[in-house]
């Protein structure tokens, strides 16, 4: 299925990509991120990252559906 992936802040700088549409068999954001780490090695250097699907915070094991927009957030640092 086709999924739109968006990278933010440090993730965007590591990948050099803001938005990309990928063809994936991953069932969850965790699997999708794993695929991304194979293409963009630097992504492995983060933990405590967060994920959102279609502008709602999601879990790493949430289910993906065709056409979803998945947002990968590196560790946040507001305040």
């Amino acid at each position, binding site marked *: 299925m086709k999924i739109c992936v968006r990278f*933010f*802040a*440090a993730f965007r*700088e590591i990948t050099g990509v803001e938005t990309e549409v990928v063809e994936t068999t991953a069932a969850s954001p*965790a699997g999708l*991120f*794993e695929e991304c*780490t194979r293409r963009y090695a630097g992504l*492995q*250097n*983060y*933990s*405590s*990252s*967060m994920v*959102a699907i279609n*502008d*709602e*915070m999601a879990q*790493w*094991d949430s289910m993906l559906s065709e056409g979803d927009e998945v*947002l990968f*957030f*590196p*560790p*946040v*640092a*507001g*305040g």
Partner: protein
Amino acid sequence: MNAFEISSQMIDLEAFRRRLLNRSCGAYVQFDGWVRDHNEGRQVLRLEYEVYEPLALKEGSRIIAEAKQRFGVSNACAIHRSGLLELSDVAVVVGVSSPHRGEAFDACRYIIDQAKIRLPIWKKEYYANGNEEWVNCQRCSEAGHEHGAVSARVPR
């Protein structure tokens, strides 16, 4: 005005405080987060906040609503900056008004603590030596991780 806002402009603290004035309240607690000139031994010159606004606004409003419900305060608001900030600029302000001070302090603390770990906001620091770096979150440090140097994988 909304309970939680993102602003690319300097925050007008007096106007912010006036929004929370309430004759039935005897207590007002305000927290200002300032841009500090150092972090982890490095001299900071300025910083930049990247904010994903659609979700930051949603999640910020949720945090405020939670605080009001949990602590029973009369009103609460917060504004977080985006963009480039200079030293001593106000990066974030949280204000809570309440009949009595105890719940106002508690609610204010809750809002800023939750904002730091839940809002999709990222901080890039610019250092005196010319380097720049994205700063990791408080939750990382609490979990014993090193800023920017962790090698753990994404949690499953």
